[in-house]
């Protein structure tokens, strides 16, 4: 709650303030290999500081879901280290799994399906209390207060998951996470399947809660507009690797990785003036079982040269808080150090 008093909306904390705090969640060279050959995650380096909202974008096979599961300790990584508040999560889980669960929570993509179908909402909301052996009376009071805060009518408690709307199911899922007072919430596609007319409400609520409870979000979404509007920093993944990471504004203004550029160009806009020329990539996403040699994107990259097929690029600093995994990053204008001009 130490940073609870920040303004709502957008990237809640000033960037300088965030940069000063130590990383809440840190991934160092994290890899995850299934069956000895499926490289679902490869060399993931990422630090998320307290109070940040980080967006994670990528298509199927990019490894974003696997990354979320690894962060939640649902999948054990095979290389590197994930730490929460400075401690390795494997050790945290082995010592006290419930304590770890109280720190890190996740909202699943399909909110309705994430609620046990034969339990009433009231009982579902009490589940975290029972699991963690928390005081039921106190917890119920907190649930009722949160119920009101999240704009859920009291009669929701008596309903079953299939009797509430998608937006309400999402609020119930958020409430279940909040009951445990977590530090970080991983939100997998928080607005997928929601009507546009209600997604704004949900995102506003999530932003308000972030400020009120001092939360940190990692938000996975294929909706680039949502990522652009809500997050402070965006990570782009392709075939199990981070290909670009940058402050959201800078990324959307001028992507440096050819894949980011193509991905952003596919985002259709209602406003003809804002439309980008679509860069349509050839072919489809290769399989992680047998990823391309060299740069994993070279098979679809519009500007790949011979070197790209041979040599795998490293994720390099590109200035302005941006990192790019490309031998020939696109000119961003913003990436130049201020004194270069």
């Amino acid at each position, binding site marked *: 709650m130490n940073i609870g008093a920040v303004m709502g909306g957008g990237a809640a904390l000033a960037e300088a303030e965030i940069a000063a705090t130590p990383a809440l969640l840190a991934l160092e060279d994290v890899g995850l290999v299934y069956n000895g050959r499926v490289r679902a995650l490869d060399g993931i380096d990422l630090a998320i500081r307290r109070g940040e909202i980080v967006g994670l974008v990528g298509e199927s096979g990019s490894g974003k879901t696997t990354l979320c599961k690894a962060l*939640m300790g*649902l999948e054990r990584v095979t290389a590197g280290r994930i730490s929460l508040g400075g401690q390795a999560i494997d050790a945290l889980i082995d010592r006290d*799994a*419930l304590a770890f*669960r*109280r720190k890190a*929570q*996740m909202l*699943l*993509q*399909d909110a309705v*399906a*994430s*609620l*046990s*179908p*034969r*339990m*009433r909402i009231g009982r579902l909301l009490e*589940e*975290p209390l029972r*699991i*963690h052996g928390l005081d039921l009376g106190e917890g119920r009071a907190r649930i009722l207060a949160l119920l009101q805060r999240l704009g859920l009518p009291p009669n929701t408690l008596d309903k*079953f998951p*299939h*009797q509430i709307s998608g937006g309400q199911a999402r609020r119930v*899922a958020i409430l*279940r996470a909040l009951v*445990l007072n977590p530090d970080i919430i991983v939100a997998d596609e928080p607005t997928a399947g929601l009507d546009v007319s209600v997604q704004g409400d949900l995102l506003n609520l999530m932003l308000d809660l972030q400020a009120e409870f001092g939360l940190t979000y990692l938000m996975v979404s294929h909706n680039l507009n949502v990522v652009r509007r809500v997050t402070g920093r965006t990570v782009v993944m392709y075939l199990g690797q981070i290909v670009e990471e940058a402050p959201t504004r800078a990324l959307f203004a001028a992507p440096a990785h050819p894949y980011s550029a193509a991905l952003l160009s596919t985002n259709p806009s209602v406003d003809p003036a804002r439309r980008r020329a679509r860069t349509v990539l050839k072919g489809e996403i290769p399989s992680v079982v047998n990823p391309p040699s060299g740069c994993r994107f070279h098979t679809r990259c519009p500007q790949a040269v011979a070197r790209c097929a041979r040599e795998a690029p490293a994720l390099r600093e590109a200035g302005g808080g941006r990192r790019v995994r490309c031998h020939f990053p696109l000119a961003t204008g913003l990436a130049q150090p201020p004194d270069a001009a």
Partner: protein
Amino acid sequence: MMAGLSDSIRSGDGVAGVLARVSRSFTGLVGLLIVAAIIAIAALAPFIAPHDPDAIDVLNRFSGPSARHWLGSDHLGRDLASRLMHGATVAMAVALAAISAGLTIGTALGILAAYLPTRWERFILIIFDVILSFPSLILALAIVAVFGPSTVMVVLIVAITLIPQFGRVARAQVLTLKSAPFLEAERILGASSLRIVTSHVLPNIVGPLLVLASMDVPVVITIEAGLSFLGLGVRPPQSSWGTLIQDGYQYLSDSWIPVLVSSVALVLATLGFTLFGEALRDAADPRLNRER
């Protein structure tokens, strides 16, 4: 998209709702009525039976139906109606005990098979196959040969033969459920495996298992009657539909009534539970439900 188009069976409509759906079809209603009647008679037999089922009255052997003996009396002059009612108690008690034992053990093994590593899963499946490979009657004869006939043995034998089918269905149900998002959500909240199985897996697989159980009742009743008929089940003088048929069969030349009434009771019970079970299965299957 189209709200309300699919009003399939879902959680929260309770026993009354399910029974209402069962009785919507004619056969389901007939089944429900027979089942209700048999269960009521079985439960209340000591109170509603007009006579002591074991009271011998040799002067009134093979008396036809009368106001005193509704269905007449048998070769020892015992009241047939009372013996049938007490026979229903035995049949129901055996069915209840055997099926609940088979259901519990089978479900537990099935869930274990679905969650344990492959090696253990195979081991459990092999046990199921071994049990299934014995014809139940041969298995019964073998066990009775060793331990001697008794009601407890009947229950035990039937329970063992029922384990594989409950186990297989439970395992299949768990396998389809295992990757459901709500189980993952519980795991993220920190729920233990035991808690996930008891609070979240079980409630979602009991439906099909109970349908299976109700379809098993007629099977169990006939096995019990069959074993008792062969003298391998319920011991005389206790009345069972099987022993009633056996007794009547021996004195068929004196009177055909005992064989007829006890056989009709058996047929009615089998029919009732089968119709009920089928209607229950239809009511529990949302796909069948939607077609109406």
